[in-house]
């Protein structure tokens, strides 16, 4: 077993403890889970404030307002127009006042307007134009069966993909009732979609299981280190950790008994 410093061991122990706290959610909501939940929410909120400062405000605003030789009042900037987004940002702070909170709608409106304007051509390109272009397939008639049905290069697969695309589009007609031939096409479309969803589901679940295995391995490794510590260097750390777990388990048991008594 690789020798571990006391600091690393403590952090690893904390990691294993928090992992188990989160897993305890599978049993039910409990103080362990609450502790881990509040810790991760608080830490992440603080972390993202710093990220926003260093990756957002500082390079994109403050550095740009202090990067040139154009002087506007106290600003030393070659791009003083960056004051406009700065001002819009400040306007968002008016939300803290009931009287002036209406001002914050201006930057929101501007943000939404610009974002929608940027999104429209992008969505049209990515979700409409490119899809239509790709749908116009030249079927490989010479290799129609391609050895197997799941060979995506075979002509049959290409034909299924094309027909599936068209049928799926039929499903998404909202201003026409799905009856007659239309119903058949729409139903074929939703089948195609469900087959796709099923494949996607299976694929992702496999990924999630590998994540779970990774966490279990982490806890397993920690257990080995902790166990070796009973007779080794980390006896005290091990007993403190065990003591915390034991105390929390006793607390949860008392709560459980109290609940049962109340329910009875």
């Amino acid at each position: 077993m690789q020798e571990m410093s006391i600091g690393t061991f403590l952090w690893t122990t904390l990691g294993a403890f928090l992992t188990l706290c989160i897993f305890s959610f599978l049993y039910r909501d409990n103080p362990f889970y609450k502790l881990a939940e509040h810790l991760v929410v608080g830490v992440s909120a603080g972390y993202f404030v710093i990220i926003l400062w260093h990756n957002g405000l500082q390079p994109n605003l403050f550095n740009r307002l202090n990067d040139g030789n154009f002087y506007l009042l106290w600003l030393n900037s070659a791009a003083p127009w960056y004051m406009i987004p700065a001002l819009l940002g400040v306007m968002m702070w008016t939300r803290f006042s009931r009287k002036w909170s209406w001002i914050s709608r201006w930057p929101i409106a501007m943000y939404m307007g610009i974002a929608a304007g940027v999104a429209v051509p992008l969505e049209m390109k990515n979700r409409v134009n490119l899809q239509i272009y790709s749908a116009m397939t030249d079927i490989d008639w010479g290799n129609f069966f391609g050895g197997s049905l799941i060979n995506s290069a075979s002509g049959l697969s290409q034909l299924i993909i094309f027909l599936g695309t068209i049928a799926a589009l039929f499903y998404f007609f909202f201003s026409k009732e799905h009856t007659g031939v239309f119903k058949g096409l729409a139903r074929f479309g939703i089948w195609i979609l469900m087959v796709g969803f099923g494949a996607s589901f299976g694929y992702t679940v496999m990924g999630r299981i590998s994540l779970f295995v990774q966490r279990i391995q982490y806890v397993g490794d920690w257990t080995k280190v902790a166990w070796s510590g009973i007779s080794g260097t980390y006896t005290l750390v091990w007993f403190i950790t065990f003591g915390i777990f034991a105390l929390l388990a006793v607390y949860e048991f008392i709560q459980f008994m109290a609940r049962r008594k109340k329910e009875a």
Partner: protein
Amino acid sequence: MKFKMLLALILLCFVSAVSGFGQSAEEIMALPDSMAMAPPAPPSNVRGVDTDNDHGHSITLTWETSPDDGAGLNNVIGYKVFRAESPDGPFIERALIPSGGTGHIDVGAKEKDANDYLPDHVGFYYKVRAITADSLIYAESEVFGPVQSYGQWFNTGRVPVLVFVIFFLFVTLFFIQKAKGGANLFVRRLAGIEAVDEAIGRATEMGKPILYVLGLGTAADIATIASYTILGRVAKKVAEYQTGLIVPCYDPIVMTVAQETVKASYMDAGRPDAYYEDMVYFVTQSQFAYVAAVNGTMLRERPATNIYMGKFYAESLILAETGALAGSIQISGTDEIAQIPFFVVACDYTLIGEELYAASAYLGREPLLLGSLKAQDYAKAAAIIIAIIGFITMNFGIEAFKHLFYVSN
């Protein structure tokens, strides 16, 4: 015999020494003997132009390969592209292209403080070096330049996108006008949307709140924008029925817009007094911390109904599973294709992709939204017709029709 061999050896050394006399080190190295490789012929006709249809900061280079690339001496293994601000250098290496390559797009950063900043409207000089397996043996092209990069206002490669947007715009305006004129625009029944009203009623009867999750999208994502409309409708009903509403937000801007939406709905319902800002609150911008917090809320508050509408990622299954565990009725909708399967599995009703956009029109029944929904259907019909024509023409060997719809980056 030994003497003859010694004499031949001395003679050979003498000939070698005399033949190399007066030549430079490079020339000696270029000799085609076992000790040195011959330098290849340089690439020729190096040309550079501003890259078309971009925002600038990029120069497209072309050249003709060395005659010794794949033929002749056949010792060229690649090309190195060099750039300088002066024809005399110093040249900096910009790219390594494998043998056979005849071009490179030199894309630089647009930020002044970036390492590979490539300013617009500044003349640059390029040369291309044919390299061999021996790093000391190479051949360079003539220096080409100056060439400048600059941005274009109009991307000609995206004309089909413009045509589609204009077509869609006119169809939308037409149907909006028609809807405003009182035309009855039919919208088929969507089970997932009709379930929203039922779910609100259930929550009211149970005396439990409704949890509305807007997802992880930004305020500008189309799915989030559609979700605001549904939230507005839900909040109005909630205000009328005096049920509780919980809206935990991932993005602060989304939270701000959601607060405004809910507030407006409470005012529309004539219950501004019942609105309080904390019903829409910010949690954190960390994906799984947000999930942990929302999961905790589900199990503590035990909402009667969970509505997930917007953009979701890996958290979708965790949220929906926890909601199912808490015994809530769940309605979801997202345009994130990869997440729809999880919602389908764990929720009672799921709005698939575009159904989410249709939901807002279906619920609101406003001419503006109904008109746009009708226009979407016509755009889909146009897309189907174009795809079928393109498919048929392609399979008859006519590619021109397909190329009409080619969109470049």
